[in-house]
């Protein structure tokens, strides 16, 4: 574990300062707990929301609008969406959005003057939350990735982090820990995902936590070919074409049509179906969509531009740490929220992009903060005296550090997950091959001697890839984001979730039939 330069203590440690972590920290503090919020990057700019902007869902239970959203979720969930869970998430989202308005967040209005609360601009929203947390006496620590959890007698008791700049470690002892480290996008270059390498999954799994729904992580977002900006919403008003200009009209969802064609050659898009009124709406709402176009001198509403698909993994896909009906994981003292938690009960086998995800982050973050606070109260004052041990028992090898080795391990891991042929469309052969390569990479010790922070990220990437691959191997059917070319149809008998876990010995298994809100 190296030298511990600094030790601190708090009732609750929240790891990750995206929306899920911010709401967890605020609710924990509001329930009387002392709170440390720690981030690998900077609370306010790090993570998918900060860079992305998010549509969110502002609807009231019992209205037609709410029914439309819930109905859509159930339909797209392919058998996994629990309607009542969606209702509860959206109830809490409405409450939180109203709270933001009460706090003075400068929401826009419709042209008729009614307030519009369905959009949160990432950097504005998170900067606002950061200020709110500091006022609520939450201790915010930036640029300090957490590397592993501490446990005491089977319960989580804190974590060890390392400052990015000094390389010194920081030990945080706490009564409970909230994992809000976001999803894993496998370093695909999708917008805002560079810090999202699955670290929270790995540290939780080392402490014995279980994951779920990892086979539903093959979510890809469209971006201009040269750009990071995977803002998919504009493409609903787009036309796709191949190199020669032939319009792509094959049946199926637009993403799969683009994916199939990209395997053959370049694909282009033009946003020719957006009315001038909508064009203005996009420009005045989502400036980040247009930065790449404006700086390249392209008018996307009038000219074709090349596009690509970038992996968004569990950031917009489904899998993550298994939780109960709120945010409690399978390990005492450990809570999970946002993309770090499995979203299967909300988005089922599909992406929750475009509203559900940001709502999920708000609601589960809030629940995690509240439930962590009551858990710590139930521990009494005794948690401070607990003996704690680290959960990553692996020794750093003594071989000379080589960044070449480390870079090559990361590149090989990405190669098993990112390509459309194998990642987007998978089959027994591609998945088995990936499984054995990933297992060899994990078992190899030599590359682990390099920079600690980068080694931990690489380990998290490999572990996350392995849970996703083993779960995808087990699910011999196609359903939502799981697209098996050898089993192209859904199998009604397999409408059951797959749990996974382990680090040295990876496992995945079907769970007993659960109550579903709709058949697939």
């Amino acid at each position: 574990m190296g030298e511990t330069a600094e030790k601190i203590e708090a009732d609750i440690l929240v790891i990750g300062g995206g929306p899920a972590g911010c709401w967890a920290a605020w609710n924990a503090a509001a329930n009387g707990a002392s709170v440390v919020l720690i981030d690998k990057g900077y609370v306010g700019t790090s993570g998918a929301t900060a860079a992305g902007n998010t549509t969110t869902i502002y609807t009231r239970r019992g209205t037609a609008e709410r029914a439309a959203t819930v109905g859509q979720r159930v339909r797209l969930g392919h058998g996994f969406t629990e309607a009542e869970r969606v209702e509860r998430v959206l109830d809490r989202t409405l409450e939180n959005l109203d709270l933001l308005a009460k706090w003075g967040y400068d929401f826009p209005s419709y042209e008729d003057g009614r307030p519009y609360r369905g959009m949160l601009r990432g950097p504005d929203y998170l900067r606002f939350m950061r200020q709110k947390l500091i006022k609520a006496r939450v201790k915010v620590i930036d640029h300090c990735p957490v590397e592993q959890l501490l446990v005491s007698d089977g319960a989580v008791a804190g974590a060890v982090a390392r400052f990015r700049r000094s390389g010194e470690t920081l030990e945080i002892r706490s009564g409970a820990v909230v994992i809000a480290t976001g999803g894993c996008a496998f370093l695909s270059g999708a917008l805002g995902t560079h810090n999202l390498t699955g670290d929270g999954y790995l540290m939780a799994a080392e402490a014995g936590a279980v994951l779920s729904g990892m086979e539903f992580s093959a979510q890809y977002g469209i971006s201009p070919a040269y750009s990071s900006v995977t803002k998919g919403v504009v493409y609903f008003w787009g036309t796709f074409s191949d190199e020669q200009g032939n319009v792509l009209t094959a049946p199926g969802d637009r993403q799969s049509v683009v994916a199939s064609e990209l395997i053959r050659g370049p694909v282009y898009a033009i946003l020719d179906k957006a009315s001038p009124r909508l064009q203005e709406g996009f420009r005045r709402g989502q400036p980040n969509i247009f930065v790449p176009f404006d700086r390249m001198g392209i008018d996307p509403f009038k000219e074709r531009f090349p596009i690509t698909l970038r992996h968004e993994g569990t950031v917009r896909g489904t899998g993550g740490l298994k939780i109960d009906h709120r945010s409690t994981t399978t390990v005492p003292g450990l809570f999970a929220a946002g993309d770090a938690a499995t979203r299967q009960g909300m988005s089922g086998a599909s992406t929750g992009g475009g509203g559900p995800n940001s709502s999920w982050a708000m609601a589960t973050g809030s629940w995690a903060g509240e439930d962590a606070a009551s858990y710590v109260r139930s521990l009494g004052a005794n948690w401070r005296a607990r003996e704690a041990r680290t959960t990553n028992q692996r020794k750093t090898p003594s071989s000379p550090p080589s960044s070449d080795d480390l870079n090559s391990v990361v590149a090989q891991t990405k190669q098993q997950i990112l390509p459309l042929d194998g990642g987007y469309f998978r089959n027994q052969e591609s998945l088995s091959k990936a499984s054995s390569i990933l297992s060899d990479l994990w078992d190899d010790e030599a590359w682990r001697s390099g920079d600690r922070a980068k080694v931990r990220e690489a380990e998290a990437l490999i572990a996350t890839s392995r849970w996703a691959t083993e779960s995808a191997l087990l699910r011999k059917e196609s359903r939502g984001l799981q697209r098996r070319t050898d089993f192209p149809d859904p199998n009604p008998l397999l409408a059951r979730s797959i749990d996974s876990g382990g680090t040295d010995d990876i496992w995945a298994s079907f769970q007993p039939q659960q109550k579903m809100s709709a058949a697939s």
Partner: protein
Amino acid sequence: MIEIVSEDRCVKCDLCVDACPDNVFDAVPDSAPVIARQSDCQTCFLCELFCPTDALYVSPLSEAIEGSTETDLIAKGVMGSFRREMGWKNAKPRGTAGDMSYRIFETGTITP
């Protein structure tokens, strides 16, 4: 990727050093920050929002170097363009009230 820290415009406040989520910059005493880890840049443009003097330029190319010069970029009017469109000023958010994103949903093409 981040390509330019303008020596002329930079007032050495080091806000970008802190605000960059990927720890791309290093602060330099009495000088403009340097781009120390360019390959870690995630092309999120957010450092531009925090810069009070529009001294930073993030190229839209996320995997290649654009190589434009500061003079070209100033002539094209793109230094600080993202900050202006977002309505930020002096590292402070302003401008969410003018968001017209509701138009995305008014035709019923998509449901959030």
